[in-house]
């Protein structure tokens, strides 16, 4: 196993290089650059900028150099732990991302756990009570969440939470707790602010999980080994969890690769709407304003997480299913 992991880590190096080249290209693809963007935005306000200042800035940040050279400077920097400089914030990228990372991980983790906590029991219920009212009802609810655009859902919740409960929404905690050490009050405030984002982000994912889980379970439930388990006298739920559920986890684990980066980037759109202090909005803004080092380094970070996620997912798959682990490569 260790050898396999080592081999995979080795294989990740060229992959990451390839990704870095692609990321760089994608960021460079839209015509124009941060500064043009910046001028355009100011101009729309009625403000003016001295074009010579911009010339100077461009030179300062190496925009006069050829693409290839800039790419290698960037990659070289990253290898040394220098993720570049954000034009917009005029801060090193690592400082910009800094704190938010933890909040993002917190929100996303809670969301994912929420999704699972809801999706698993419901999925199991739906599969074992196929075509009951419960199955129909829960399916309907899940799909409702899926069918309503996140933005609209956030808006509606935002509005009615206010009209009915008088709570104000947005941010991850009340203002007075920012930069305060953790306390129960702060925790409470965070918990309160967490509800809506978690619901909004969660609903979309839940329906998918439920339906897939249900489908997979229905397939497994009839297998002979489930009968064996029943014959052993394993109580129904336990039999379900130990055998078919584990089998159906396959698809779910295969997807871990994309969960990790999602944890970090958070649900961008919702985060923007609810002004959550997560990294998602940061990334989108960076992309929109073509703050390329910020965007690029952030994307590379996500890419690295994806690669790690895929690795974890492969290892988990192997642990889960001995048939994958023990098979020799065929042909």
């Amino acid at each position: 196993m260790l050898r396999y992991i080592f081999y995979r880590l080795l294989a990740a190096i060229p992959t990451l290089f390839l990704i870095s080249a692609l990321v760089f290209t994608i960021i460079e693809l839209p015509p124009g650059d941060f500064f043009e963007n910046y001028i355009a935005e100011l101009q729309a306000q009625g403000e003016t900028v001295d074009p010579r200042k911009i010339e100077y800035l461009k030179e300062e940040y190496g925009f006069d150099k050829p693409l290839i050279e800039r790419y290698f400077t960037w990659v070289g920097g990253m290898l040394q732990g220098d993720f570049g400089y954000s034009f917009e914030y005029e801060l090193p990228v690592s400082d910009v991302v800094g704190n938010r990372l933890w909040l993002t991980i917190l929100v996303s983790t809670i969301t994912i756990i929420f999704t699972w906590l809801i999706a698993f029991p419901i999925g199991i219920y739906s599969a074992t009570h196929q075509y009951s009212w419960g199955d129909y009802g829960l399916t309907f609810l899940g799909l409702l969440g899926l069918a309503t655009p996140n933005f609209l859902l956030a808006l509606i919740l935002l509005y009615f939470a206010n009209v009915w409960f008088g709570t104000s929404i947005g941010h991850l905690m009340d203002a007075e707790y920012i930069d305060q050490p953790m306390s129960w009050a702060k925790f409470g405030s965070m918990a309160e602010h967490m509800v809506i984002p978690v619901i909004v982000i969660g609903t979309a994912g839940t329906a998918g999980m439920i339906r897939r889980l249900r489908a997979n379970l229905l397939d497994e439930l009839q297998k002979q080994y489930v009968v064996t388990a029943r014959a052993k006298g394993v109580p129904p739920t336990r039999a379900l969890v130990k055998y078919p559920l584990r089998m159906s986890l396959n698809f779910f684990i295969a997807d871990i690769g994309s969960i990790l980066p999602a944890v970090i980037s958070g649900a961008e759109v919702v985060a923007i709407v609810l002004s959550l202090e997560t990294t998602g909005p940061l990334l989108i803004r960076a992309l929109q304003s073509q703050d390329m080092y910020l965007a690029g380094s952030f994307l590379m970070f996500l890419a690295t997480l994806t690669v790690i996620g895929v690795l974890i997912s492969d290892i988990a798959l192997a642990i889960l299913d001995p048939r994958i682990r023990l098979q020799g490569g065929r042909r």
Partner: protein
Amino acid sequence: MSSSIPPDGEAISHFVSQTPFDPQGVEKLSPEQEKVYFASQLKLMWWKFRKHRAAVWSGIFLLLIYLSILISEFLAPYSLERRDVRAIYMPPQGIHLFHEGSFVGPFVYGYDFKLNMQTLKREYVPNTNDVQPLRFFCRGDSYRFWGMVESDLHLVCPAEDGYFYLLGTDRLGRDVLSRIIYGTRISLTIGLIGITVSFLLGISIGGMAGYYGGWIDHVVQRIIEVLQSLPSIPLWLALAAIMPVTWSPIVVYFGITIILGLIDWTGLARAVRSKLLSLREEEYVVAAELMGASPPRVIFRHLIPGFMSHLIASATITIPTMILGETALSFLGLGLRPPVTSWGVLLNEAQNINVVALYPWLILPVVPVILVILAFNFLGDGLRDAADPYHSA
């Protein structure tokens, strides 16, 4: 002895059955059973499917809605461009049949209009004296049927000089119902192309990786890693930036969906792959190979069916994402734009607080979205069950 079972606890005696015994005897089949036994597997599935009422109704519903695409112009009471200055933000009108106790046929009440300069709100009060009977198969706004034949026939029109806004109007005084009907065209076609592309790719590439394993798997895995590492948002932005401006929004959107489809297959491919990695160890797969079956045959005949439920569920789950894909895209300034109309565009226009608080009927396009998604899901359920050998209808 007449029974094969002795009294409780007593020694058994020798029982021999007296019923006539015919060693050649086989169960006789009724003609109707006979029909079942010689039907093809597809036909069997169809029979099973027919038993699933929700699925059948969903199928019919979808069929109808797809057919409606063909005659949107005729079904919509108004044309797409139609804008009524008198009816800005007019709330939905209910259809009535009886006026003051007497039957009039389907009609709507007109509205009394008042401009509230205090709140700057257009206020509409139903006027129960203003009876506007609906007309059917009538002449209304003219349109070019499929962009070709000039016509002005509509299924239903308002009374002469009246108006009929079943689902209300928007800020320009456009009929929401008509726009929903027109929007169906794009929402139910373009988005699904993306799914198709991504499913085809996901299944074949994931299937190959899972089936062959070894170096093919490694290469595919790395490709997937790379693609998964490219988050969609920058990709959208980049794509939007390089799409020629002179292209019409529909073509651009079409292009984006296809490209997204080309990129979006990775999740599915991984799921297929990991499932196949374990499924391919099953003996029946070996059996198929030993009969000389080619890899595609093994994958599509033996491996994928074992995975069908997951695929169906995934597909039905992805459909809303694709139908609403443009909402997410529009948030970033991409996606479809007016005058092209789709459900996503309509919902997009509904995404502001004015609508939520003051003109909630503009959120109604969510209803067809939900219905279609439900229908696809039930249809998927039906298909799943039909394909499930253990499930007997």
